[in-house]
């Protein structure tokens, strides 16, 4: 299927191959760089799953550990092989996705084959698993030293109680010690099958050739009927406040509101979430100016709506001498907007902004691939999101305001200064 978007003036080729893998191809004429991304619908929130009526409990950090280990091959030459083809390869893991990608200028087709190949041929031994523990431990400690990351992790822990989303994506230095090759391979075989994957290609490429390579190089595998851990989680009530101390010059905060409005379609949830956040406290709002002039916030203040298949969070974050006061301001503003102060003109202006920013995102090959990868997990494509930004109405956004941002489903996470 070929989709065209008149606002973006771009095409999107969507194909479900017979193996079950979903292909999204976005040609970008005139660009030098090409990117292929293989996204597997599994991440840190899949630590616990059920397959064939058997509940499997993994060590925290298994999906991310597997991401590291797939780069292993028998002669330790995978990076070198990509280099010979002029490809630069990397990967990332989130709550719900593990994505492997290669960027190159030349030899796109060969790079794509190599990407598909290594993702389907794990070479995992107890020896190379042990070796990786030192590297991942250092990665974890790097995040441990990052105050904003700690504040965000703590927010998730507060919002999602003991559930899968409360855990760190990387696991902990302690939890990864128990991981072995057997556990990694069984996790791999549970989740890495074509119907649970998407291939995203962006750049000056031939869409049909790319799809043909995907068809020829992705093996058919049976579909596993996995029941995801987060579907089994009890809906824990949010714990209102969490804090920790670190050597920071000023406290950092993350204020999050858990999504409870799952009746609204995912695309509408995302778009209205982003627009509402901006209407509440974006840089053109009166609230932003008040907080800025009170020296309560600085340029680090920001907001975003983050979501996956079974969760969503609206987050305000930044540095502040008094995060509690920021929370009070934001709660008051939400109350005020709910009492009929949501402004139609401001809505149109913010909508125009988000459309412009979305169009700007199409300047960047990597950003297009990453956005589509993230949307695949939610069952969406990048044009659907663009269209929703273009046609969402004031009434829809107003309706959403009454269904989201509940104080009882919110939490404030603070990193206090220990110096």
């Amino acid at each position, binding site marked *: 299927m070929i989709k065209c978007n008149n606002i973006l003036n771009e095409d999107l080729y969507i194909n479900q191959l017979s193996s079950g893998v979903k292909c999204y191809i976005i040609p970008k004429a005139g660009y030098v760089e090409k990117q292929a991304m293989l996204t597997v619908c599994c991440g840190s929130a899949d630590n616990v799953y059920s397959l064939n009526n058997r509940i499997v409990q993994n060590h925290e950090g298994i999906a991310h550990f597997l991401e590291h280990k797939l780069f292993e091959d028998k002669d330790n030459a995978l*990076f*070198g092989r990509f280099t010979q083809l002029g490809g630069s390869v990397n990967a990332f893991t989130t709550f719900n996705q593990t994505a492997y990608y290669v960027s190159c200028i030349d030899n796109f087709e060969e790079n794509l084959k190599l990407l598909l190949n290594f993702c389907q041929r794990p070479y995992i031994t107890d020896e190379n698993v042990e070796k990786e523990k030192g590297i991942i431990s250092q990665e974890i400690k790097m995040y441990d030293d*990052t105050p904003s990351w700690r504040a965000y992790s703590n927010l998730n822990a507060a919002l999602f109680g003991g559930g899968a989303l409360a855990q760190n994506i990387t696991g902990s230095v302690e939890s990864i010690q128990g991981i072995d090759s057997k556990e990694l391979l069984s996790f791999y075989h549970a989740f890495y099958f074509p119907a649970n994957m998407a291939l995203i290609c962006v750049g000056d490429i031939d869409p049909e050739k790319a799809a043909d390579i995907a068809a020829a190089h992705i093996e058919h595998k049976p579909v596993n009927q996995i029941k995801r851990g987060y579907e089994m989680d009890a809906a824990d009530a949010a714990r209102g406040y969490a804090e920790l101390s670190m050597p920071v010059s000023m406290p950092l905060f993350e204020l999050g509101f858990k999504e409870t409005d799952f009746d609204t379609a995912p695309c509408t949830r995302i778009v209205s979430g982003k627009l509402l956040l901006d209407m509440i406290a974006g840089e053109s709002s009166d609230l932003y100016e008040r907080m800025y002039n009170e020296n309560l916030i600085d340029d680090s203040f920001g907001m975003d709506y983050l979501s996956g298949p079974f969760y969503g969070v609206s987050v305000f974050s930044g540095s502040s001498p008094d995060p509690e006061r920021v929370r009070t301001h934001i709660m008051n503003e939400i109350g005020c907007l709910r009492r009929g102060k949501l402004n139609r003109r401001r809505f149109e*202006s913010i909508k125009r*902004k988000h459309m412009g920013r979305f169009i*700007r995102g199409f*300047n960047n090959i990597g950003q297009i691939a990453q956005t589509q990868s993230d949307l695949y997990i939610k069952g969406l494509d990048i044009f659907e999101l663009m269209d929703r930004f273009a046609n969402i109405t004031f009434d829809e956004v107003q309706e959403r305001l009454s269904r989201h941002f509940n104080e009882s489903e919110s939490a404030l996470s603070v990193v206090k200064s220990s110096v």
Partner: protein
Amino acid sequence: MITLDADILYKEPMAIGGAVNTHIIKTDKFKTAVCCVLIRRPLLRETASKNALLPGILRQGCAKYPSIPKINGRMEELFGSVFDCQIVKKGEEQILQFYFEGVSREGNFIKGVEFLKELILNPLIDSGGFKPDVAANAKNHLKNIIKGRMNNKAEYARVNCLAHICENEPFGAYADGYAEDLNDISAEDLYLHYKHILRTSPIELICAGNIDESELTAAVRGWDTTDRQRAIIPLARCFPARPAVKYISEDFNSAQGKLCIGLRSDIPPASGDFFGLLMMNEILGGGPGGKLFTKIRERESLCYYINSTLYWFKSIMLIQAGLASAHFERVVGLVNREIEEIRQECVTRDEWESAQQGLIAKFRSGQDYYSSILDFYAARYLLNDRRSVEDFIRGVEAASLSETAEAARRVEVDTVFMLK
């Protein structure tokens, strides 16, 4: 005015110089167009804080858009255009940079240029100075930024390592200013300072995108006043490392130690020998094919990240890694061993090809990003270096192992900064 097609940056030496400071890089590849204004000052300890305060003031508004919401409301009207004003350190210049980027439709770009003009030329003033509350806000925010340097420990190690390497040179000054200076700077002084720098600084207006020259000419008319005297900013100089390595250790009780090794070379960026230095840096720590990654991360499992970066204007190389503090000495030893290997021409074919291809790919893929196009262009212009991207690619292709080893022999460790 200098006009060139973006392709030319990649094919031919570009035209440089002339008294007029409007530069147009024509390309219709992107959805947006960019206007970047650089007000260039020499980086000096004495004036660093005054200059550093200016973005925080100007960002709060101008006569026509007198508040942050008004500025951002204007950006929303212009289809979510992006505006920023910040201090940028390029070599020994402290540049006050204004940036506008907006989608190319309905005259959006020219409106953006007009917006920048308002913001720069008609700031918010009150009886001969910047507005006192605006200046007070800016000072407070800058103080927090300066105090906040400690929040990002890898960045803290990087910035401080550079400051130690160049402790007696302009490059060692903090471009975002000094907290102890701020109390003594009044809103009136600062406004006089701003008027002075508008009158005496070289100002570059660099535009990129699908731009109509005549419209731009009309929009910028009146900017370049005739009574301006432009100061000449000396080019940064490159020096060899100090005779004995300086070791600095700071204790932050961090979960992970941050190591920053600073090396110096006297090979200037415009010289032909610089290609050897580029190759040496790439072979050592340019990516996953580099010696540091393969030997210290993959083989020894000692760290998650380790890489090296070359600072073109000063020919300074920084090697950064995150590791357990107990392994500092071991890793410094391993890094030294890898540098020595390059000096002895012990470079495998894979290492060589990986570095060469990696460098060429970086030069080529730069044309897909405005940030790289503007950086490359501005750096060439400021260095008075007429080479194109293709010239650099040819230089990398022609570099030999013996030149690379020779460059490696002309790089020495100057400072080792350890944050524990």
